[in-house]
């Protein structure tokens, strides 16, 4: 076993807003091995980006990391001074963002911005910087790199800008690259090229990659291990094969069945997840997914399930798990995905989501 380069333990990040305390990330723990590709998937507001921002010390007021440890190569990043953190960020840990246009300075040449990242950290000898800038641009497959390095960002297409951002991220030979929705703003053919580039760079440079995305397909193509986040918590963790083929958390399972697949035969109905993710200021009691879960049981309303091992290398936070849902609740054949539909658990007096018509509330109370 190699030592992980990044180990996040019990991280909690909250935002102190006028409306109340938004508990965006709560008790998140995970680790990243050297050279590993880890995917963090979830929908907007699940805490995946806030987790990454917390690792990089980029959480801004009113947000604050309220607990936990972030161990990077044996040092707790949360205990470092701003100066010490700045020496790691962009040098040992690099980040690329969703929108490459707003991440680049429009009045500076692309080459200058790539070189600047190297000058700032003095890891690359100064005499090598310009040469390396061109090599990096070649490495991220920008054609005619010698000429294009003198261009301004507006002369680059969206895909090329993201390549330039990746070149900048790689310039100081980081151990870890955090990519937050790096392809979301791009067209699908360009997305595929960027993902292939990231895959190749991971193999060539050995830099570990944390890929944050809402797109399950993107994760399946790049990541060996996957974390699934919901409402600020990790609900499931496993290898890509486990997460996509044998998910144990009902949220992971439902998410996979709610997206149309290009290779699926037509005519089947998507299994939608009813309702909305919870309000992070006023979280439901018990399991945070219980208001939307077709497989919930009584216990889910009162006790929050801990994340526990469900298979070798696979963990899930669920009192039921899909294994039991298949065996006892007919998960393989359900068509009704409304809350409690498969388990028949509708506690008295519990308000159903707004999408239900009043008659259904009457029925639920009757149970």
């Amino acid at each position, binding site marked *: 076993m190699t030592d992980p380069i990044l180990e996040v333990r019990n991280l909690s990040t909250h935002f102190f807003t006028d409306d109340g305390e938004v508990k965006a990330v709560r008790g998140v723990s995970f680790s990243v091995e050297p050279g590993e590709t880890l995917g963090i998937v979830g929908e907007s507001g699940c805490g995946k980006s806030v987790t990454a921002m917390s690792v990089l010390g980029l959480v801004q007021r009113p947000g604050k990391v309220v607990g936990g440890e972030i161990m990077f190569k044996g040092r707790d990043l949360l205990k470092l001074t701003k100066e010490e953190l700045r020496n790691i960020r962009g040098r040992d840990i690099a980040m690329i963002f969703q929108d490459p246009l707003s991440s680049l300075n429009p009045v500076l040449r692309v080459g200058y911005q790539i070189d600047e990242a190297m000058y700032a950290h003095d890891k690359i000898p100064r005499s090598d910087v310009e040469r390396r800038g061109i090599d990096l641009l070649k490495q991220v497959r920008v054609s005619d790199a010698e000429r294009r390095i003198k261009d301004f960002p507006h002369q680059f297409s969206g895909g090329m800008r993201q390549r330039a951002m990746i070149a900048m991220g790689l310039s100081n030979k980081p151990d870890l690259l955090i990519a937050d929705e790096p392809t979301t703003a791009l067209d699908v053919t360009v997305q595929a090229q960027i993902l292939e580039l990231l895959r190749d760079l991971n193999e060539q440079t050995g830099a570990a990659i944390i890929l944050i995305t809402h797109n399950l397909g993107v994760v399946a193509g790049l990541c060996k291990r996957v974390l699934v986040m919901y409402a600020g918590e990790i609900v499931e963790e496993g290898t890509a094969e486990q997460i996509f083929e044998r998910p144990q958390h009902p949220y992971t399972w439902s998410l996979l069945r709610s997206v149309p697949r290009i290779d699926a035969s*037509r005519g089947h109905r998507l299994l939608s997840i009813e309702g909305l993710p919870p309000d992070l200021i006023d979280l439901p009691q018990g399991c945070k997914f219980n208001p939307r879960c077709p497989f919930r049981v009584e216990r889910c309303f009162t006790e929050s399930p801990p994340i526990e091992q469900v298979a070798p290398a696979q963990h899930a936070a669920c009192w039921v798990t899909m294994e039991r849902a298949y065996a006892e609740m007919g998960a393989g054949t359900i068509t009704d995905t409304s809350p409690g539909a498969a388990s028949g658990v509708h506690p008295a007096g519990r308000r159903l989501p707004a999408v239900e018509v009043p008659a259904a509330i009457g029925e639920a109370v009757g149970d």
Partner: protein
Amino acid sequence: MTDTVVAAAARVAPAVEPLLRVVNVVKYFGAGVGASVKAVDGVSFDILPGETVGLVGESGCGKSTLGRMITQLLPVTSGEVYLDGVDITKLHGEKLRQQRKQLQMIFQDPYASLDPRMTVGDIIAEPLVNFKMISGRAKDARVQELLRTVGLNPYFNNRYPHEFSGGQRQRIGIARALALNPRLIICDEPVSALDVSIQAQIINLLEDLQREFALTYLFIAHDLSVVRHISDRVMVMYLGKIVEVAPSEDLYTSQEHPYTRALLSSIPVPDPRIESKRRLVELSGEIPSPLNPPSGCRFHTRCPIAQVPGVCADVEPPLELKGAGHLAACHFSEQVRTKIAITV
């Protein structure tokens, strides 16, 4: 060329009159002296009653411009748009207004497409008021009925858009589009701004509504998986032209245009085993400028099987029948599947 397309489409379903017939529609936007952006450049197709036709393509291919010309939100530069047999590009004023009742649109951004200062009830009732169809208590009853139809609480009619989530707002937009009992709905990226778990709710709702009200959809989106899921037929657009039209079942197994095949090869599948075998068809370069599209086949500058110099650079391939209900605009469509590998 246009005649062959229309004839080909007619051959697929000879008995039924199309609800929408688009004939050789062109949209050029002026871009300074003597220059024009050829956003849509000669597009023809039919949509039969009750059908869902998908329109897919990358940003800038002209798919939204085409949708806007069909609704007459943008005037056509040339060409005809027949709605139920009437060319609406030739109509003006009240006549256009009356004909357009049959046609509604659902927009991409559920935040920008609802007036924040109107109540949900007023937003949904606005089309009814515009056409003086209904008023007073009957109007309120209709609004509540529409809210219930789209899966919202009927007593939410006095609330404002900001009180709703993105998915709920899209439901409000759908209720507004249904208010006049339209026959055709143009859905322009209706789910792309929504979260994954909410997308399925809206897609299922659109499918249910189609069945209930015998609706016809033109479904415009960049996501081929979503388009293929909901559509009976899919049209693929590239640089202002339709390059392929295929029944949805055929699209995944047989492509007759290299661009469609490349597009398909770029779509990630949530299955690591399939992903490890997927091979990306790398398209050279960037999408050319619609200011000055390439000669001959517009795709020839990036096509992996183009014969350049040769026929591909010189002659524009017509959109012609390649199989049952399957049209493509390629000189070498028979080589697409044999010469371009998409698995390893």
